[in-house]
């Protein structure tokens, strides 16, 4: 086989990483919370809040919680991926690969992410913003991925997906389009936070367009935070991880350029706590669960946009997980871990993932 040039091998992924990092910096500059320009877990949690599935930090004076908003970034990511997939004839509805098991894994991945306070993408953005707690999270994330890889090598599989109808594949993008109408019209039954991170957001159109561009690039490049480390370990393939590194560098440079701030420390980082054990364990749960799911939360959104209904079920699991995490006091705050049974949920999550990992292992010869 002829050798690929560096540009052909890494060009699109590095470009995608730069655009994602740039988008995070830009959206922060225009109103999103600091070090949260882009976070799939936080934004799905905010959507759960807007639909009143949770109202964390409810303030009776203003009448809303602090993390309730329909984030156009999620909608843009999905619809951007859908658009490109349709244009390139890659929109292929399929599903049926253990959807209920995926739902359960997704719930625990979201609980882990909200104990840490961010999905793998926000973890990378936090590292780029100088938050050393996210480096602890990264260690946990890698440990979780390595655990998942052990099971993959021993025959773990959620079985194959099958072709489904166009209506089935379009249901999730249609749901996103409906959310877009709701955020644009803002009817009274949809709740938007009047204080806290949920009240901080970039203008709708800007967030939507930027996210759609990211969605297009992520669909084309197959950007995945989990896949980067998994492929590096399993195949010594460093393509996906190059985007991971490009995001960190871009966010660092971008924060310095636009004055978002870049301070390397564990303390007083935006929307982050410094409980190292829980930052670590939360991300172990995310890494392990994401390997079992076959991709990080961002990747699940893109796949759902391409018509993968297993990923659509997974995203639904994330939203339910966010509601569970906040309603039962499992989600961390900016100062501490949650006030609910956090240890029970995280350790329970490990038990559930272990049972799922073992129960779905095929018998291997030799």
């Amino acid at each position, binding site marked *: 086989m002829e050798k690929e040039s560096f540009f052909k091998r890494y060009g699109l992924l590095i470009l995608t990483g730069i655009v994602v990092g740039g988008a995070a910096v830009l959206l922060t500059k225009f109103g999103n919370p600091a070090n949260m320009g882009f976070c799939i877990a936080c934004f799905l949690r905010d959507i759960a809040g807007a639909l009143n599935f949770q109202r964390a930090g409810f303030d009776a004076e203003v009448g809303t919680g602090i993390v309730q908003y329909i984030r156009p970034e999620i909608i843009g990511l999905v619809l951007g991926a859908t658009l490109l997939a349709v244009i390139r004839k890659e929109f292929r509805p399929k599903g049926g690969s253990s959807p209920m098991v995926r739902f359960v894994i997704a719930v625990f991945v979201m609980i882990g992410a909200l104990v840490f306070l961010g999905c793998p993408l926000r973890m990378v953005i936090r590292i780029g913003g100088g938050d050393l707690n996210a480096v602890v999270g990264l260690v946990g994330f890698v440990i979780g991925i390595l655990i998942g890889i052990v099971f993959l090598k021993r025959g773990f599989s959620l079985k194959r997906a099958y072709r489904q109808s166009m209506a089935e594949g379009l249901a999730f993008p249609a749901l996103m389009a409906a959310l877009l109408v709701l955020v644009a019209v803002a009817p009274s039954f949809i709740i938007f936070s009047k204080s806290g991170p949920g009240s901080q957001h970039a203008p709708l159109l800007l967030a939507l367009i930027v996210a759609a561009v990211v969605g297009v690039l992520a669909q084309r490049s197959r950007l995945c935070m989990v896949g980067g480390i998994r492929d590096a370990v399993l195949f010594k393939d460093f393509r996906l991880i190059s985007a991971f590194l490009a995001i960190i560098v871009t966010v660092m440079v971008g924060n310095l350029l636009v004055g978002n701030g870049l301070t390397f420390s564990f303390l007083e980082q935006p929307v982050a706590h410094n409980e190292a054990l829980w930052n670590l364990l939360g991300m172990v749960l995310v890494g392990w669960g994401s390997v079992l799911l*076959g991709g990080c939360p961002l990747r699940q959104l893109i796949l759902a946009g391409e018509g993968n209904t297993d990923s659509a079920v997974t995203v639904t699991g994330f939203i339910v997980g966010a509601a569970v995490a906040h309603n039962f006091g499992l989600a961390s705050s900016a100062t501490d871990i949650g006030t609910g049974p956090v240890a029970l949920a995280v350790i329970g999550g490990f038990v559930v993932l272990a049972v799922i990992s073992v129960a779905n292992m095929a018998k291997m010869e030799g």
Partner: protein
Amino acid sequence: MNFVATFHTHLSAMLTCGSLQKAGVTAKLAPVPRVLSSSCGTCVFYGGAEPHLETMDRDVEAVYRREETGDYTCLFRGEE
């Protein structure tokens, strides 16, 4: 290695890679080339004079021959 087989699951790719190696064929696991699929699954690159279709696991998605131009020619497509 002039053939590549794509699969519906990572497990299926792993089993096929093992079967090919047991049959004396040089084979290795790798991420699916982007030009073949938008999914981020695992494929098997393997060598030999013929595509060994009988060695494929039942969850094989497709088998391609890699031409000298770098293009892929589909030799077999499994059930969708």
